Each structure stands twice: as C-alpha cells, then as structure tokens.
C-alpha cells in the first residue's frame, strides 16, 4: 500500500501519522506540502491532526480552500482512499467530502484522553479487521470535535451504515450527535474520525487498538 500524508503549516500529527504508516506498511508515506498541486501516485491519502492554518477561523475552513485539497478531492472522486483524523476530519467536512460539521466540545474545553469506542460498521476498507460492535480505545485530543448534522443527514448516515465508530455508552467526550465518532462517505472510500487510531499502534504508547484500521487498509489495497 502506497500512502501520502498531507501537511498544512500547523499540522502537528503529521509525524504521528507518518510513524504509524511506516510501522504498519513497512514503507514511509510521501509527505505532501499544502501548496503542492499534485499528489504522488498513492492508494491512501491521510489528512492528519493539528491546527492546519491556525484554525482561528472555523477549524479546517481555510485548509479546505488550499491548493492540495483540489487534488485530494479528485483522488476521492476517482475512488481513492482518504483518511482524515481529528483536524483532518474537520478539513473533510469543511471540504464537503463528508457531511455535517464539528463544533466546539460541549464542555467548551480541549480534551485529551483515551475514550472507549464501538466499531459500528465493519463493511468498509477501513474497518474490516474489526468485529461488529467491537469495543476499542483510541485517544482523543481536540477542542472542536462535537459532530453535528441535521436529523435527516444523521438518519441517512445510519440508514446507509456509514457510522464507522461511535463513542461507547458514557464515553462521548464532546457532545457529538448520536455518539458519532467517525463516518464514511457515500462511496465508503473516505473516513473521517475525531479519535486518533495512529496513536495506538504501539504497545509502549498504551495500546494497539488502532492497528486493525491500518491492517484493513493494507489488505484492501495490496
């Protein structure tokens, strides 16, 4: 599997993503600067966590207008895989590659802690290696991660089995609607999620629950 990590001026989980991808695929991802207009030939594009352009405006709003996002959109349109983690998820909703929006956490505070999740949908290239309803723990680290969409959109997401991850009962750290932690695009080739699977691929860092996500992708793409 060939992968690329996009980095914006204030991306800060680009290294986390690079480390996880290198460890899982055995190959370092291509690192792509936000002003580059062309993507290398890759199977997977990762939009990492961070603060893209400082995010003083809505998180990800400016990043969605960047040069590189045109190519990311084209990659997604032709069925390429896109994974947006944390700020990457925010960029994906701002770019309308995924529906809904991520609002300020309900408690109005940044929150960094491990949270329990349930894998809600295993029929996707991102989640095949999990079992349905499997309980996993990923860390979250965000100030604006409260997923919001209108009722119709939420019904549709659920009806089309596009909710990949939900916060487990009592674990919702940000007030997300219907405990949604991560969603798939209509064509199921784009996944955005607030928790960080790339921070849990190494036992010494407190868990390996994120590995199955990368394993699913590797199996699917090679």
């Amino acid at each position, binding site marked *: 599997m060939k992968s690329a990590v996009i980095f914006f*001026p204030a991306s800060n989980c680009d290294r986390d993503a690079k480390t*996880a991808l290198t460890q899982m695929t055995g190959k370092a991802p291509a690192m792509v600067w936000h002003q580059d207009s062309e993507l290398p030939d890759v199977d997977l594009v990762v939009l990492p966590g*961070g603060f893209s352009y400082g*995010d003083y405006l809505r998180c990800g709003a400016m990043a969605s207008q960047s040069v590189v996002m045109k190519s990311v959109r084209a990659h997604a349109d032709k069925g390429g895989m896109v994974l947006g983690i944390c700020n990457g998820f925010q960029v994906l909703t701002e770019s309308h590659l995924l529906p809904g929006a991520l609002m300020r956490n309900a408690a109005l505070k940044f929150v*960094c802690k491990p949270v329990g999740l349930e894998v809600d949908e295993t029929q996707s290239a991102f989640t095949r290696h999990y079992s349905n309803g499997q309980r996993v723990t990923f860390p979250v680290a965000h100030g604006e991660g409260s997923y919001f969409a209108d009722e119709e959109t939420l019904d549709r997401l659920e009806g089309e089995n596009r909710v990949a991850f939900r916060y487990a009962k009592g674990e919702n750290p940000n007030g997300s609607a219907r405990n949604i932690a991560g969603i798939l695009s209509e064509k199921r080739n784009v996944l955005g999620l607030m928790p960080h699977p790339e921070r849990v691929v190494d036992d*010494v*860092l*407190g868990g390996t629950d994120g590995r199955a996500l990368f394993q699913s992708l590797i199996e699917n793409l090679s």
Partner: protein
Amino acid sequence: MTKITPEMVREHGLSEPEYARILTLMGREPSFVELGIFSVMWSEHCSYKSTRFHLKKLPTKAPWVIQGPGENAGVIDIGDGDACIFEMESHNHPSFIEPYQGAATGVGGIMRDVFTMGARPIAMMNALRFGEPSHPKTRHLVSGVVSGIGGYGNCMGVPTVGGEVNFHKSYNGNILVNAMCVGLARQDKIFLSAAKGAGNPVVYIGSKTGRDGIHGATMASAEFDDASEEKRPTVQVGDPFTEKLLLEACLELMATDAIIAIQDMGAAGLTSSSAEMGDKGGSGIELDLDKVPQRETNMTAYEMMLSESQERMLAVLKPGREAQAEAIFKKWELDFAVIGITTDTSRLVVKHKGTTVADMPITALSDEAPVYERPYTERAPLTGEPAFDKKKNVLESLKTILASPDMASRRWVWEQYDHTVMADTVQVPGGDAAVVRIHGTQKALAITTDVSPRYCRPDPFEGGKQAVAEAWRNLTAVGATPLAVTDNLNYGNPQKPEIMWEIVAGIDGIGAACRALDFPVIGGNCSLYNETNGEGILPTPAIGGVGLMKDVSKMATVAFKRSGDVIILIGETKGHLGQSIYLREIEGREEGAAPKVDLGAEKKHGDFVRGLIEAGRVDTVHDLSDGGLLVAIAEMAMPRGIGANIGIAGLPDDIPFWFGEDQARYCLAAPFAEAEKIVEEARAAFITVAELGKTGGDRLTLDDKSSAGIASLKEGFESWFPNFMSGEEIPVTN
C-alpha cells in the same frame, strides 16, 4: 533631544545611584531611547542583579554537560550524538493580570528559548501555584492559565506531559506560572547566540513588531499593588500558529549552514536580543529601525526597542546567505528583513529615520550592569515536632487528604493538554515523572518539576535541598538516571533582608543537593518581587529535572499491577509531621520543622532502587513525598483499583508512620520471590527496609482491622478538582 528628568528615571524603575552610574558609563546624559534600553537591561528580570552573585555558587559542570547557564537553554549529552536542551522560565506577573495570554506567551517564550538553540521541542511541563481555592479570583485564574497553556502547547503540537499545581494563600495576589520546555537536537547542530565577527547581516524573522508588551521586563521586576491590573496593556498576546511556522522555518534554516548566531526576542525584545548577541560575540551591532517589520503605524524608536511582541527572532547570518534564508521564511509566510549589521565597535547603535537614537557601549548593558550583594538577615529555621491528636482515624484522614486541593487528582488540568501528540509519550501525567521516548529509539527522557514551598518558608535551606532531592527521586522512581536541572527561583522582594536570606539560603540548599547528587544546574530563571501589597509568596524555587533511560521497556510506574505482590518500603521512617500535608489538612496548622534531607541516604536509596528497575526486577515504584506513606500506597492502588492489606507491628504511633514526610523513601511492589531477594539485598547494603503487606482485593486494609474501598478513595481523589472548577465546592483551606 528629550531632557531626562528624575521622574522619568523613577518611572523606568532605576534608582538614583543606578542613574548616576549610567551618566558615568555614557559620559553624557542618555537619550530617551537609551534610558529605556538601560531600564530593561538593568531590570532584575534581565540582569539578575540581586542573584547573580549567589547563582555563581551553583554547580554547573559534569562530563555530560555540553552547555551550562548563560545561553537561552542548557544542553546535555544523552548519548549517540543526541543532545537534550531544556529550560524553565516564569511568566508570573503577566499571568496574574491576564491569565490566558500570560500563560500562553510563557509557553511560547520558553519554546523559543529551546528551538533557538536548534532543538525540536518534544515535551512541555509546568509548575503552577495559585491562591487558596476560596479566594474569589482563584478559579478564574486556574481556568485561564490552564486553557492558555493548552491553547498554545496544543496548537504547537508539543505534548504537555505534566507538572505541578498547588494552592496556598500566599499566592492570592501573585500566582506563579513556570513553564519548562525540553527539546532534542544533534550535538553537532547546536546554535548559540554569540554574534562573532563584523560585517555580518543581522536579520529579523517572525511576526511584525507592535506596541504590545512594552516594559514587560520592568513590570516583572516590581511588586504588585491594587492598581496592577491597570498594567494589562503590557501583557503580550500569543499567536501559536505563527510560532509553529517560526519553529519549522528556523529548523529548516538551521539545517543549512547559513547561521552564525540566533537568539529569540523574549523579555525586552529587540533590545536584549541584540545586546546579548553582541555581548557574547564581542562585537558591535548597528540596527536600522526603519527596516523592522511593523504592525502599527508611527511607532517610535523607543517603542520598537522595548516592544515584547511575540514570535520573533534575531539572527546573524553569514554574508551572502540572506536570499537563501529569505526563501525559507517566505515559504512559511513569515516576515524576514535585514535590519542591521555586526560591527567591530562593541557598541549598540540604533538608527531611526536618519538619526542615531542610541549609541552605547554594549558592556554597559551586560558586564557593567549593577550587581548587588544585598544585605540579608538570617532567620533560624523553625524547629520542633508539632503535637497532634493521636485518636484521629487514619483511613478517614486519608480520605480527607486525597480529596484536598493540593493532593487531589490533577486530571481536570492535564486532560486539557494534548499529552500524547508526537506519538512518543510513554508515561502520561499522574505518575512520578513523565517519560517521553526519543523518536525511533529505545531511549527515553524522564522529566519532572518539583518544589515543596511549605518547607521553604520555615527552612529555606532544607527546602531548597528537598526540591532538588524530590526531582532526583521522581526521575529515579521511573528508572531514569537523573542528569541535570533547571531552576526557576520565585521569591519576594530581594531588597527586604529577610527575603534576601530566603533567596541566599535557597540557592545554597539547591547547590548542596545538586553537588551531592551529581545533578548540575544547567539553566534557570529568577522571578523576584513576587509580592502584593507587601506580602511575599512562599519561597518557591521550582526545580525542573531531566533524566535518561537507556531502555524504555524497563520503565516503572506507580500503579499496582498484580495481586499478591509484596509491598516494600525503602528508607527510614521516623514519622516527621512538621510542615506536613497531614498537619495542614487534618489539624489545620502549618507548624514545626521542615523535614531534613539526608543527601547521602537519598543517593544510596535512589541508586539501589534504580538498579532494580534497570535490571528489570521491579516495575512498580513510587517516591514518597507529599502526604507520606499511606497517601503513596493509595496512589499506587487507585490507578487499576488493586487494593492492599498492609500493617506493621509494634508502632508507637500510627499517624506519624503513615503520614510523616521523611525524605529519601520509596515504596515498591514485587512478586514474593523477587521481594524477598530485594529485602535481603537492601539489608546487606545497610538500607532500612520493611515489608508492609501484600497487594490484592479492592480495599485498602490496615492491620487487618479497618479498611476503605479503593473506589471510594478514588471518588474523592478524582472529584475535588472538577467540583471546584464547576463551582460546586469552594472549600476553605490553608
């Protein structure tokens, strides 16, 4: 030219003798700009004029020290060509006036100190002191400071991995915000600030200069009064996005060989960065302020020289490398301007709109700055063992202590800091020390900040020793070899002889401990005049310590991990209750002698424990400090809900045994066979050792008689902070 009046001199915080000295050094009356420059460079904050004489007594050398005090940060050798660069700095006064921005820019400032030397910051710590919880401003200040630290550090993508939060009434009008940054560089890529050589371009990089923060250094060198909040305009505003750009751009420039010297613009901005670079390089600097990127119109030379606008750096490049550097800063969308040149005159010359507004010998701002051996009055340390009610229920007291402001879980605080970004945080906040892996290796750095101010008022010397010893112990308890410290000395007004004595004795105590423990001081910062309306804070010499682990897989943590482990106490327990948490929280008194620190015992016990961890024989260790033995055992039981059955036969008094704060002690847990060997080896080494009982169950049971559920202890421990911050509880303390 503006005529300098005695009022102007006073308003600039300069004394009459100091002004007389300026006249002598200049050989004429200074210009207004020059007066401003003297004022900041001779301020306590920049010149260390009250402490410099005493700081010289600190041990600063060891074979592994690459750079001691005097640069932006200290540097140590951590093997394989790697260097660890770290520093701690206060941002106390600004944080009291404007907690969010004060704390945020404190974080930004210390990060710049570290990356200006070529290091990528890999971890942040902080040491915070607030007034008593019942004080009307405390909650607002806690909330603002914590979100300011998080707001800046999270955006930078550097994990904030731990620190300290304490409450005491002496900080009611003067909180302490000390931030520490730890970075990593290659030993052959360390950048210093000496602007050697003449004719080299001086370049300005980063944010534009505005009117913010003018005279911040002078403010930081004065006592507070009720009108201090009017000083809000002197607090700078932080922009972490720009700092992130600056970090990446500087590291990119540093990968080339274009830089001769580089220095961040911190306190006193352009003035101190240019003067210090010239001073260290033995050269002169000529600046043309018309070239300085400006955020506001009609800025005067005085304003530009004294502005403390954030996220700026000054560098001296090799001639002809300007275009290469400019391209990098353009890529990162930062301002870049050649604003001056180095000269061979040893003078700082500042030009603005075609006229020379300052022309002064640089040594007048450095070597010739005043140094005071201020008079001090010794005060005998408090002595005596305080009385206590022997009938108090031990487990009830434990519950109260675990749910008290200084001892309750700080989860509410550190969950607002991204402590796992960079994917190398091996030990998260809540343990004895944070542990951060060195990327791509099995090596790791352990980091801690420590001081017990309640010991430092009754006995500044022992208190200084204890701060160092506790930092050393915390690093040891995770299995690291302690290597070096940075000290952040927070005290009151040094012009009061009794405060000056606290400073002198504190520094002596730190020095004694650092010498005995082979734990040199490689950097630091002094924050004096921490007083409000004449009331000084508790002396608070915060120690930031760093240690190295060769194999992170051997790391120990405080949590009990198995049932049936034997709990071992290393070190002698006399039951010292003076100035203890127990006495304060249960008896409501701050009395008696501070505990004495036997540095020989510290070294011996610590080396013994570290040896066990490094050999992979023990994975459960906790240092004993605030609250004593029983609090430590509860802290070991709570993380995984594994209880313990403990007791010791023939105790004359159980309260001092369980809650005394004797130093040089550790609590370990290990499987039976291993534990037996450890006890035997400790005895053979003449180390006091005791077996206290075994882990297991979900209760903490004392002497088979009374017990408390771990879940209920944890409930109190975890709920105090969130309850306090949500306004549900404002206990009266201290």
